[in-house]
Each structure stands twice: as C-alpha cells, then as structure tokens.
C-alpha cells in the first residue's frame, strides 16, 4: 500500500468514514430506515441524510479554506454538530 502514500490524518479520515458506513449498514439491517420529512425540503432516509451531511460538510470545509485563514478544526466542529442535527431532525 506504499504507492497510495498514506498519512495519519487521511488514514483516520477514511477509517472514520468506513466506521460510519459499517455502522449505518448494521443499523439498516437491524431497523430498516423510513423515508420521512424533517426540516429539509425533501423526504429523506438515513442514508440520504448521511450523504447530504457529508457532501455539505465537504463544501463547508472548502468555503472555510477559501474565505478564511482560521484554523480548520472550528469548521470541523461546526460540521459535526450540523451532521448530528441533520441526522436527527433533517
């Protein structure tokens, strides 16, 4: 795997994504998701909300990097809170 040029932060990032996906899969087998409407304008399943959360978090990080010189962890914390809100009430 040397050719993939792994670093510790990217390993942790992908491990996190992998754990979330495995957890979501197990959750889906245990209690299949229901499509429902929350504060988002469309009806979504758990998987939809996770995807929306990850995609929007990616964009929020890019906007942060593009428009500010502040440290990155501030937006990372905001994104974690955003994802929790989205998964619960989105």
């Amino acid at each position, binding site marked *: 795997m*040397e*050719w*993939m*040029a*792994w*670093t510790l*932060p*990217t390993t942790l*990032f*992908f491990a996190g994504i992998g754990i979330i996906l495995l957890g979501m899969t197990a959750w*889906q*087998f245990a209690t*299949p*998701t*229901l*499509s*429902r409407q929350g504060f988002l304008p*469309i009806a979504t*399943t758990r998987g939809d909300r996770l*995807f929306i959360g990850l*995609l929007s978090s*990616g*964009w929020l990080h*890019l906007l942060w*990097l*593009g428009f500010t010189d502040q440290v*990155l962890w501030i937006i990372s914390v905001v994104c974690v809170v955003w994802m929790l809100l989205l998964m619960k009430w989105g």
Partner: protein
Amino acid sequence: MQRTHNNRAWWLVLPVVIVVAFSAIIPMMTVVNYSVQDIFDPSTRFFVGTEWYREILRDERLHDSLIRQFIYSFAVLAIEIPLGIAVALSMPRKGAMVSLCMILLALPLLIPWNVVGTIWQIIGREDIGLYGWALGQLGIDYNYASNPADAWVTVLVMDVWHWTSLVALLCYSGLRAIPDVYYQAARIDRASPWAVFRYIQLPKLKSVLLIGIMLRFMDSFMIYTEPFVLTGGGPGTTTTFLSQTLTQMAIGQFDLGRAAAFSLIYFLIILLVSWLFYTAMTHQDSDDA
C-alpha cells in the same frame, strides 16, 4: 411513509461495489492522500495539510478556468436542449424514414472525441475546410487559431454537432412514449400545435429532458479532448477548460499535490450538481406517481 423491503437484495450489488472499489474508490483515496502532501513519488513526500486547498481556492487562473467552464456548459445546454427538442419534434413518427433519421442522428455519437476534434480542425480551416472556407466566402474574417471569439464559436459548434443527436434521440423516445389518447383529446379541444407542445409534449418530456440535461452538463463540464485537439486551449488560455488546466498541472508541471487538491474540488462540484439532478429526477418521479 413507505417501508423498505428485503434488504438482502443489496448483496446483489456486491460485484459492482468490488469493481467500483478498484476502478474508482481506491484511486480516489490515493488522490485524497496526495492532496495533503507535497509529493514527487511515494518515497519522496512531505505532509502539508490543507495548504494546496487554500492555494487552489484562491488561484486566479483556476477561477478564470472555472468561469469559462460554467459559461461553456451553460452555452452548450442553452443550444443543445432546445435544438434537440426541435429535431425530435420534426422527425417522422413512422415509416422507413424513422430508421434513416435515427441512423443519421446516431452517426456523430459514434465518432471518438479526438477524431471529432481533428475533423473540426480541418473543417474550420479557411484554405481546405468547408466551414472556414464558406465563412471566408461570406466575407467573415474567421480564424479559430488566433481569434478567441472564433475559437469559442468553433468549440461550441463542434459540441453541438457531436452531441445534439443524443438530446434529440432521448426526446424522440420520450415523444413516442406519449399515448395517442392525449393527442386525440387535444384534437377534440382544437388545441393549437403550441398548446399541444406546451401542455402535452413538454410535461411528458420532463424525465428524459432531465436525464439529457444531466448527461450533457456532466459531459461538457468534464470536456477535454475535443478543445484540446482543436485549439489546444488557445488562443492564449481562452478555451482552456478545467480538465485541461488540471492536466497541465498534473502532467505538464508534475505538481501532483496541487493537482490532487484541484481534482477533489472538481469532483465535489460534479458530485453536487449530479446529486441535485438526481434528487430533482427522483422527486419528480414520486410526484408523477
């Protein structure tokens, strides 16, 4: 509220997941790894964190390239979608001419991208090319190699020539799927051709048009070969689109870390737009149901 049934069916997706893992996911993970490093080869690399992202997001050259790309994609859609609908509407509904029209329409779609670029490079020449020569005969001073406006027109005309057929064929299939009773009702109401189009054909074409718009947007947004062969991105950088800028950075300058960060931003743009189209399509389907 609708309950999802039989999740075991997801196992059938496993083969494609494995193929996609090797063809897309693992390379993508490698790109993410590269994007946080100043890297020459896997044994010569330095961790730089988000430095490349900050640089790329503030790079004027890339902003210009992105703006050009959006203008190009929207121009392609603005021309090809109405033109494709018009071609589909003017095609015969039955008879031997249907096959002939479909073969003629399919022909440009079968030509490889680099050949299309070469064809238009020759057609656009004023000395031996039909298009360039005809414009010269009309007294128009045309040179796609030195005039940015001419280069843009030629790149757009080339794309329209290559891909309008796709939109036309999609729309034609959509039109053929409309039951005849709708037209009978329109005849009883003495609806005008415009009313038939506006209130019967266009609403029924919504699904195929969304697919057509998505395909054309994605494809035009990632265009590389045709303008590269035709204009080489010039004159200057006037027809240098995102993928060519990325290739120059990755292969020309061998700036792999920056190029990796750039390609991930590029990917996120495409992913966002694809998701918006996908959501619009699936929600339209559920509205129609």
